[in-house]
């Protein structure tokens, strides 16, 4: 990568990602400066281990440097695209260590989805619709989906945490997803 000029302070995130695609390292730094705290939070919610979350962010930014050209602003928000890269990097690490993190981890909180927390989801129009559709789900399905997406829990871990049989959880999550899809359509 070349250094490139420092990105303009008001450069949009999609513009920075486009500059990363052109090999401008300064633009990658710009993405890091703006998004690292949010993305580190996403990784740490899944891994609940700051060192591993840092490894996930490291992997994700190298992937971003190599794959920035694949970002298409017409197909989704830059923030969501970046979070997707980070989530999958964190999930890869979680899978590699066998997802042995305890499900009674205090980092998970007492309730998987305190209703008030869902307010944070509703910051955008898409988020408001998603919250409404999540609230329409049966509570266990909703909790299962949030535990998986936000905290990277496997079927087995969700089953242990919600004290439900594994087969039940698998079916619930699958049906919950399809129900969400129908609700959001």
């Amino acid at each position, binding site marked *: 990568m070349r250094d490139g000029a420092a990105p303009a302070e008001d450069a949009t995130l999609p513009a920075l990602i486009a500059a990363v695609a052109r090999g401008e390292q300064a633009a990658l730094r710009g993405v*890091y400066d703006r998004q*690292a705290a949010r993305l580190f939070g996403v990784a740490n919610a899944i891994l609940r281990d700051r060192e591993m979350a840092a490894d996930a*962010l490291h992997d994700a930014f*190298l992937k971003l440097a190599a794959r920035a050209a694949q970002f298409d602003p017409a197909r989704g928000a830059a923030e969501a695209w970046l979070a997707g890269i980070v989530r999958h990097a964190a999930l890869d690490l979680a899978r590699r260590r066998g997802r042995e993190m305890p499900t009674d981890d205090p980092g998970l909180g007492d309730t998987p989805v305190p209703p008030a927390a869902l307010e944070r989801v509703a910051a955008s129009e898409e988020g408001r619709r998603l919250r409404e559709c999540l609230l329409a789900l049966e509570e266990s399905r909703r909790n299962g989906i949030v535990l998986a997406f*936000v905290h990277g829990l496997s*079927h087995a871990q969700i089953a242990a945490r919600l004290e439900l049989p594994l087969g039940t959880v698998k079916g619930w999550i699958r049906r919950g997803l399809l129900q969400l899809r129908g609700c959001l359509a």
Partner: protein
Amino acid sequence: MSGAIPEAEREALAGEYVLGTLEAGAARAVEAALPQDAALRAAVERWEARLAPLAALAPPEAPPEGLWSRIEAALPPAVAAPAATIVPLRQPAPARPDLSGLWRGWAMGSTALAAGLAAFLLLRPAPEAPARLMTVLLTQQDQPAWLVEAEGGGLRLAALNPRPVASDRVLQLWALPPGATAPTSLGLIPPEGRISVSPGAITPQPGMLIEITLEPPGGSPYARPSGPIQFIGRLAPATGS
């Protein structure tokens, strides 16, 4: 994994992939299938978009000091990265065909380049003949897919590893000169090897990004790619020629 996955199954698989509940083997299988399976890829993109707002439930947190330095140290060094993808040709480039005819019709040479599709794309001649430029376009799995050579203002493509394209999709070729913000279409690459060109004020130059996207019939409806990038590479001076 092919396009033969039933729709409901594909939706559930894509949803669980995005949710993160797939086991390692299944997640890897989905990742491996994504570049070839446009329907699965679209399903994954839709799930990413549906569930994205949930990421707000993860509280932001400052990363450890020094993380950026670690990332920076692991980045590919300047210039060296594209050069690493260069594969010098052992044989000299095939003789230039009659350019005036090519300009109108896009002749396809069944050239010495083994693997089938080869196209010669005439671009605006460079004011001064630059050195020969090359790149190898890679798939998302970093597999070499196309050899691209630029010489005297023209661009030559040869498939290294021909693979079928879905019957309802076409491949479109794009160039992004250094400093440009949007790629310029260089035309479609249909299977039979004839190509319609939109001549633009594009001169191949070192650092120019060359990419091939998967597009609906007739090409992207926009002045920029609408479909996923299938292959990408960056022109650099040819070595060993």
